């Protein structure tokens, strides 16, 4: 494993992050605060507790998930799409490094950024609601794995995309609806039975459910299933990336 090369990619990506630190920091704080004002205070005051948890606190895990998923995808997809777009990707492709090293560098940096944003949102949420974390280690594990797997997914999108529109397409048309319909702001048990069944086909439900369990000890689906889902998703993404580099898909002619 060429750690020097991985470090070089990681460092360069983090430099970009720190150059726009204000934007990276302010944007999640602002959007989280808005969610709390709208959902937590205005609407939440008319909603009773959800399964024994105040509505304001209940949406925190969903909010964090929403942000780290979308941020993970956008950071990682942009990280590899931008070099493709401006042509600097030639250097990465001609360097004596393997697909795994390239992926660890880029995806590691993108996951770090989302982890940072997740932490910022958690801290902001503390200002608005009283939060108890029932299983801190599991919470960290779920958050870390989600950051990682969605950064991997974003990396795939970045390699696949051939223009800026395609880069936005999947996050906009697939991921955002899945997250909103995945129980970010409600419990699956609040839905009519028929919709509960449909919802179980949404992979994001498993992630949000597991993450919420780590906060409040309550889940829509068994925690083991949540872990399995996220591990499976990570493996699938890794396999696709491996295939992309092996065949040179949209990277090498």
């Amino acid at each position, binding site marked *: 494993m*060429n750690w*020097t*090369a991985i*470090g*070089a*990619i990681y*460092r*360069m990506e983090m*430099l*970009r992050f720190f*150059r726009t630190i204000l934007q990276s920091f302010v944007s999640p704080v602002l959007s989280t605060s808005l969610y709390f004002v709208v959902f937590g205070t205005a609407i939440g005051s008319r909603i009773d507790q959800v399964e024994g948890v105040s509505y304001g606190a209940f949406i925190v895990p969903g909010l964090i998930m929403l942000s780290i998923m979308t941020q993970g995808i956008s950071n990682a997809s942009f990280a590899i799409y931008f*070099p493709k777009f*401006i*042509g*600097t990707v*030639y*250097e*990465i*492709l*001609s*360097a*004596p*490094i*393997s697909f795994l090293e390239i992926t660890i560098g880029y995806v590691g940096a993108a996951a770090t950024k989302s982890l940072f944003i997740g932490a910022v949102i958690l801290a902001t949420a503390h200002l608005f609601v009283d939060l108890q974390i029932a299983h801190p280690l599991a919470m960290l594990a779920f958050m870390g794995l989600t950051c990682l797997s969605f950064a991997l997914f974003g990396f795939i999108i970045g390699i696949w995309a051939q223009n800026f529109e395609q880069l936005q397409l999947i996050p906009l048309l697939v991921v955002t609806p899945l997250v909103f319909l995945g129980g970010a702001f409600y419990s699956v048990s609040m839905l009519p039975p028929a919709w509960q069944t449909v919802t179980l086909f949404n992979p994001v439900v498993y992630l949000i459910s597991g993450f919420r369990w780590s906060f409040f000890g309550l889940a829509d689906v068994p925690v083991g299933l949540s872990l399995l889902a996220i591990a499976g998703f990570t493996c699938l993404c890794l396999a696709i990336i491996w295939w992309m580099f092996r065949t*040179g898909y949209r990277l*090498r*002619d």
Partner: protein
Amino acid sequence: MTSILHIEGLTKRYASGHEALSGVDLTIEEGEILALLGPNGAGKTTLISIICGLVMPTGGRVSVGGHDIARDYRKARGMIGLVPQEIALEPFETVWNVVRFSRGVFGKKRNDAHLEDVLRSLSLWEKRDAQIRELSGGMKRRVLIAKALSHEPRVLFLDEPTAGVDVELRRGMWEVVEGLRARGVTIILTTHYIEEAEEIADRVAVISKGQILLVEEKARLMARMGRKELRIELHEPIDSLPERFRDKGLELVDAGRAIVFHYDTRGERTGIAALLAELSEAGIVLRDISTRQSSLEEIFVGLVTEDTA
């Protein structure tokens, strides 16, 4: 001399069906400067891109320093530096950061002294903290070279290094190349400026339609293929050449004011002395004579047109 780059039966057919390379064989010696000449679309960039790992070959083998570029890609690529044809740089990074990145991504330990050397040799040291977007086109090109040199490659590919670069900068670029040769770096440069190949290359390879037409030492090539031209200015213009000169390959030009004679430098006798004597016998008075060697450009154009004919 030992060979550092060995290419055998290399072919490339793109998904579109276009055959960019059809069986290229080429061996490059350590420490030489090879100019790869060819018209646009001849396969120059495809050839370089395969060697550097940017394009996957359809068939054939390439080894760098004895390391196969597919099986042993880490060792092979580690020896190569590439300066691409297009300027591709991250606009918001500083010169220092992009150069340091290049060294790191090639797996070399941090060495600020070496990077300083490279930047100084390319007159970029003063600009090390400037963002790329603030630099002129010529400086950006030099940053590309600095990046390629940051990891101390033994083989350097320069893909059209002086395309669209002004004359002064081109000279500067040649000096840089000369300096690299002095350090023992093998250089392969593609160009369609014949002047460039003539100026700095040791050997010239001509590629056209995906095939290497010839590889030869520049001097030998010019001597072998070079024809000389003798131009005889006449004192008084003449209407036509006298009968006795008809089959001697002479040409009357400039409205009868000059005669041009083509001869082969390889010949034992060039026939110049005899011709001059005969002209004087025929009563033609000479005003001046001059000779000119055909340039690499004429040789090149001749080869490529022959190939396309």
